[in-house]
Each structure stands twice: as C-alpha cells, then as structure tokens.
C-alpha cells in the first residue's frame, strides 16, 4: 500500500490539535470560574470561597501545564507538514499566531505566577487582579487563535497574488465574517466545559460527603450557569449555522446529509450517508424541519452536495454524525440544567444521588461535544484549507514522504499517550486528595513563578499513610 503523506498529515494534525484543544477549552472556562471565586472570597471573606479557589487553581495548574506541553508541537506543525500553506498564509497567520504566543507569554510571565504562588505574598486585591488577568488572558489567547481559524473558514481582508496572501485590511481579516459567531460559540463552550467539570467533581465529593459546604456552593454556581448557558449555546449555535450556510453551504449540506438542493428538506435524526452513491440509507427525519431551521421558512430551499463536484465535497458521514453527537449532547446539557432547577426546591439538588451520579458522567460530555463541533467545522471545510482559495493537497509539504509522516504520527501518538496518561493519572490524584488539603499549600513555595504543576502539591504515587499530606514538606 502506498502511504499518502496528505492523508497522514491530516490525521496527524487532527490528532495533535484535538489532543491540544481539550486543555484550553477547559482552562478558559475554569479561569473565569476561579476569578469569580476570588471575587467572592475578596468580597465576603468566607473561607469556603478561598478553599474552593485554592483547590480549583491547583487543578487549573495541572491542566494548563498539559496544554502548554501539547501546544509546543502545534506551533511547528504548520511548517513541518503544511509548509506550502505556511508560506502562502504567513503574511496574515504569522503575526496573528505570534500575537497569540505573545499574549500567552505575557499572561504567564506577569500574572500566572502571582495567581498560583502569591496568595499569601501579595495583597488580596492584587491576587484577585491576577486571577482576573489570567481569565482575561485566556480569552485574548483564544481571540487570536479563533480569528486565525475563522479566516481560514471565511477569508477576508486579504488578496491572493502569485500564490501568496497579502493583507489588505487587518480589521477585516481579524474580524472576518465567521469570527464573531465562532468566538461566541467557543466562549460559551468553554464556560459549559468548566461548569460541567466543576459540577461533576463537586457531585462526586458530595456523594462521598466531603467538604459539603464548599462543594455545595460550587455545584450550585455551576448549575445556575448551565441553566442559562446551555440554552444560550443553542441559540448562538443556530446563528453560527446560518452564517456557515451563507459562506460555506457545502459544510451545512454535509451536516444535514442533504445530497440534492431542494425545498421542504427534512431534519434527519438518523441516516447512514453513502458518499459513493451520493445518497443516504435508513433515513429517519422530521419533514421540512431542516428547511425551517436553516431558512426560517418551511418551504425554504436548502443547498445540496450536488452543487459541487464529488471531489469537492467534504466527507459527509463524519460531519453528519459529529454534528448529531454535538447537538444531542447539547440537548442533554440543557436537560441537566432544567432538572437542576427543578431540584432546587428544598435543596434537593445536592442530595439526590441519581442526579449527582448523572453529573459525574456529564463532566466528560463537554469535551466530546467540543471535539465533535471542531470535527464538523474542520472536516466540513474539506477539501479546502482556506475556503475556496487553497485546498489541502496544495498545502501539504512537497518534500514530505508517507514514511516520514507515518513515523512522526506514530511518534506523537506514543509520546502523547505517555504524557497524557501521566497527566490524567496525576490529575485524578489531585482530585482524589481533594479540597481539604488546599489550605496548607500557600505556606511553602510562595515565590516560585512559572512552574504550573508546582502549584499542585500532590505526590505522584498513591500513598498509604499520608494521602492528605503533600510530599517534600522540608522545602523552604
């Protein structure tokens, strides 16, 4: 079998970027949560807020650390596997991605150290300010990254001359047509991720009767957030979809599994798309609903995949199903928000075991939903890398052979698997040791900037006799 460097590079990029994406999507939401906790602690002086904040900051540190490690690889992928793309788009993407690095750098340099290690070293107001700046920094970082991605979906503010993009208007390029929708959609997704993880972990502690007061507060906060944000996400997602319909109709056609442009298009609940025969098997759908959702008219015309040549269609099945997974999980999230509201009366929300068990499992769903959503938007753009202007085949590194791409693909999978298992295992240890421990941390290790994991003082291995005591007490 001939190894195709293009396919292998696509798999490799999908792998490293998916792996990387799950960390920031969590830290963005979590950073805002921590800032709110710090604000509450500052305002009320209630030690429960301080405890919560100290604990979640510890979790933040570990996840942030893993995000940084996996992110280093990302900044070199464009050059190693997509060098033609890098060269063609550098005039725009180069400065934008550099600004992302610079922002992250700036944030890490100035404020992360204070947040992680400065609780007892700086005045409370300064610590709160650092927490807010870290939260703000994560948003600014995602601003640049999403602007870069959105430009690839809906290029604007640039012109293509002799195979190279030149920027004609920075503001049009940065605020390109799909950017506001993507930024909103992703921002809410981060909040949902943070909320569900906090809710799930708090639920787990509540099931075990650990630190009930603090965990009840955290659960309550996240449930309120879920109640409002999950439905809001549905609305924003709808607007995002309409924007996609306008600029990338083939992506929407693939999401709907709609092969032929027509009216009264049904919303398919189930189907097995068959790209070879350009049709679906086993369709189950609600008549005319897709027309209504997409055009707000039951009789509206929905573009079909037959508008472009077969080789210009995105892979339909994976886009179709990823979209359904994302929407289904979104619905489930709305449901949990509503159930939480119903259980509010008499405070049953933190005392109902089946609900708490359900929340435990729900803590994984935002990650699946986010990845599914990115699958939709990225695979749905195929075969284009820059929509309508540069396709994947033109973008790949010319000198790249299938063997080289396979070698590094296997390499990254192995390395990430090792690093990721160590990281997740350690995160589980941090969660297991729990909130109770947080108060002792600030005592030692105060003036250590910039070592994210150092903020979590949990020994790596399970320990029989001193689970709740950090290792290396002798320090400082």
């Amino acid at each position, binding site marked *: 079998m001939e190894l195709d460097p293009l396919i292998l590079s696509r798999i490799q990029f999908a792998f490293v970027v998916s792996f990387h994406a799950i960390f920031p999507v969590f830290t963005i939401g979590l950073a805002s949560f921590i800032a709110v906790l710090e604000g509450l602690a500052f305002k009320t002086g209630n030690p429960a807020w301080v405890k919560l904040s100290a604990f979640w900051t510890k979790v933040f540190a570990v996840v942030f650390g893993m995000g940084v490690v996996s992110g280093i690889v990302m900044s070199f992928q464009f050059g190693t596997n997509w060098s033609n793309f890098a060269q063609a788009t550098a005039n725009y993407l*180069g400065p934008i991605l550099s600004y992302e690095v610079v922002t992250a750098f700036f944030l890490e340099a100035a404020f992360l150290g204070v947040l992680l290690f400065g609780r007892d070293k700086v005045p409370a107001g300064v610590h709160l300010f650092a927490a807010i700046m870290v939260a703000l920094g994560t948003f600014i970082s995602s601003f640049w990254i999403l602007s870069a991605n959105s430009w690839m979906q809906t290029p604007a503010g640039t012109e293509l001359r002799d195979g190279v993009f030149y920027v004609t208007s920075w503001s049009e390029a940065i605020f390109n047509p799909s950017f506001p929708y993507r930024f909103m959609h992703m921002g809410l997704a981060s909040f949902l991720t943070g909320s569900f993880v906090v809710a799930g972990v708090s639920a787990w502690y509540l099931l075990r009767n650990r630190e009930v007061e603090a965990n009840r507060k955290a659960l309550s906060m996240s449930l309120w957030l879920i109640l409002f944000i999950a439905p809001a996400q549905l609305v924003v997602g709808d607007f995002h979809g309409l924007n996609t319909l306008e600029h990338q109709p083939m992506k929407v056609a693939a999401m709907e599994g709609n092969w032929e442009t027509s009216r009264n298009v049904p919303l398919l609940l189930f189907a097995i798309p068959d790209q070879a025969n350009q049709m679906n098997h086993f369709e189950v759908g609600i008549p005319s609903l897709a027309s209504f959702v997409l055009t707000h008219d039951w009789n509206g015309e929905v573009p079909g995949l037959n508008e472009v040549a077969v080789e210009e269609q995105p892979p339909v099945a994976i886009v179709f199903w990823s979209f359904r997974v994302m929407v289904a999980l979104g619905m489930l999230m709305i449901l949990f928000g509503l159930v939480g509201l119903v259980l509010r009366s008499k405070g049953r929300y933190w005392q109902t075991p089946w609900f708490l068990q359900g929340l435990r499992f729900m803590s994984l769903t935002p990650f699946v939903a986010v990845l599914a959503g990115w699958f939709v938007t990225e695979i749905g753009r195929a075969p284009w890398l820059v929509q309508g202007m540069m396709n994947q085949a033109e973008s790949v590194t010319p000198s790249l052979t299938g063997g080289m791409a396979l070698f590094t693909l296997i390499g990254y999978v192995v390395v990430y698997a090792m690093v990721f298992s160590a990281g997740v295992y350690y995160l589980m240890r941090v969660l297991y040791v729990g909130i109770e421990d947080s108060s002792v941390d600030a005592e030692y290790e105060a003036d250590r900037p910039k070592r994210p994991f150092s903020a979590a003082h949990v020994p790596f291995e399970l320990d029989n006799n001193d689970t709740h005591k950090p*290792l290396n007490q002798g320090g400082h």
Partner: protein
Amino acid sequence: MELLDLPLIWAFIIGFGIIMYVLMDGFDLGVGILFPFAPNEESRDVMMNTVAPVWDGNETWLVLGGAGLLAAFPLVYSILLPALYIGVFLLLTGLIFRGVAFEFRFKARSSRYLWNWAFAGGSTVASFAQGAVVGAYIQGFETANGVYVGGALDWLTPFTVLTGFGMLAGYALLGSTWLIMKTEGHLQEWAYKITLPLLAGVLVVFGIISVWTPFVDDMVRDRWFSNLSVIWILPALTLLCAFQIFQSARNRLEGMPFVATMGLFVTTYLGLVVSRWPYVVPPEYTLWDAASAPGSQMFLLIGLVFVIPVVLGYTAWTYWVFRGKVRAGEGYH
C-alpha cells in the same frame, strides 16, 4: 527609500531570540545531560533545583522564535522545518519528556528513576538535535522555487553528527559551569572536576568543526579567506574565552567560568552568523528574499516593542529572586 529596513530589524530580533534561547536553555539542557553522571541522588535533587525556577521561561524563547520566524521570515520557516523534519520531531519530543519530568520527578517516589531517565534522555536528544540543526544550516539546503526539495535525512551527515556532539559538549560545559556558580561543597567540587575535561572536549570538537566547515561550503570558505580579515577577531575571542574558563576554573572562581562559557557561545554564534550573512536559507535566499510583507512585519513589530522589554524585565527579575546558592533539601519543588 524605505524609512526602516524591517527585515534587518527582524533579523536582529530573531537572532537575539536564538542566542537568548541557546544561552538560557543551554545551561538547563546541560544540567540534564550531566544528570546521569552526578555523584548521587541528592546531588541530582540539587542540580534540578538550580534550574527548576527558570527552565520553562527559558524555553518560551523557542516558541516565540518559532512563531516569530513564521511571521517575519516565512520562507525560512517553510524550508527549514520540512528539511529538518525528523530532527524537529526529535527536538520536540525530547523537550516534552524533560518538561514533564521536571514536573513529576519531585512528586514521584518509587517511579523517580523513570523521570530521571526522561529528564536526562530528553535533554540529551534535544541538545543533539539542536547541534545537528546548526550543522545542517552550515551545510545549506536544497531548494527549488522557494520549496525544500531534498530528502528526509539530508540533514543527517557525518558533519551534522559532529555538530550534534559539539552541542552536547558545549551545553554540558554550560551546565557544569552553571553548577559551579549555583552549588557548593561536594557537588561543586564535582562540577569543577568535570569542567576542564568538558572544555577540552568542546575545544577538540569545535576545532574539528572549524577546520571542516570551509570544506563543506565554498561560500563559507570565501567569507573567511577573502579580504574580510576583521572577522578573525571572533575565533580569537572564542579562544580567549576558552582560556578564561580554564584559568578561572583552575583558580576556583565561581562566577567567571559560566560567564566565560557564555562568551564562548556568543562568539561562536557570531562566527556562524558572519559565515552565512546575509543568507538565511543558505545557499539561495537572503533575509530580504525570505521576508514577509512589510505590513505584516510592521504589524507584529508594534506589539513586540512593548512585550520584549517586559519579558526581559521579568526574566531578569526571576533570576534575581532565585539568585545565590542552592543547597540540598531547600529546593523549590
């Protein structure tokens, strides 16, 4: 006439970033290279503690360099990374392993030996890959129409293997002189003991590289043996630095060996720069050929004017906070 020669400004910024990275990550990679040879486990704790507060700040220069290169000299980025494909992969995985080892070794007990190996192995592989990259740069790259057209392993030649070992020796020397400055007693004694053999190793490898380089490429030979004789001051300064390391280590000075080693790196680096100036993708493209659009270079420059001073100030502050000797058992874990 343009008011500013933007590509030139950017060449200075990136060139500055590279030497900052080499000097700063160099000593902590060096500590990793020396790690398996340390006298005992307690010394390893201290060694790691000397670099723990600063290493990841050091590595951010690499990420900034990578992104800055894409923005300012996309041609360099899009030719070098494909050409050095396997080498870049080894470099990144090496850095990942040692980064993770940094975090977990202090928290590990029974699995500590695994993290020791991850730290030492990652540091060694990453350093060797960096040296090989330098060698590949001296060799030049096979391009056509702004695209790399060579093979996957063109960068791996006897010459680049030698430069890889040169970098290992050089970083190890940076590491040992750093340890002289930052430690005391038994460990410092050990660092003094290995510094002179390491210096000898560095001089031998650097010597062979210097003699070999003119034969690798005609342009480099012309540069050194034509009328531009003023550049010979650089190798002279390199030798002076080497002598200074030798003298100061023998006289048991604590700071000077490290400073002189940094001097040795800077003069060698400048020697490399003048060998190829103004070509950034030898032998084809100069820095002006490789530059991105002026508007793009300007757009990013505005941000960096504000950020670089902050980063430098912060870096200086970190080193100030963690100045002085590191003793056993008082690490920042």
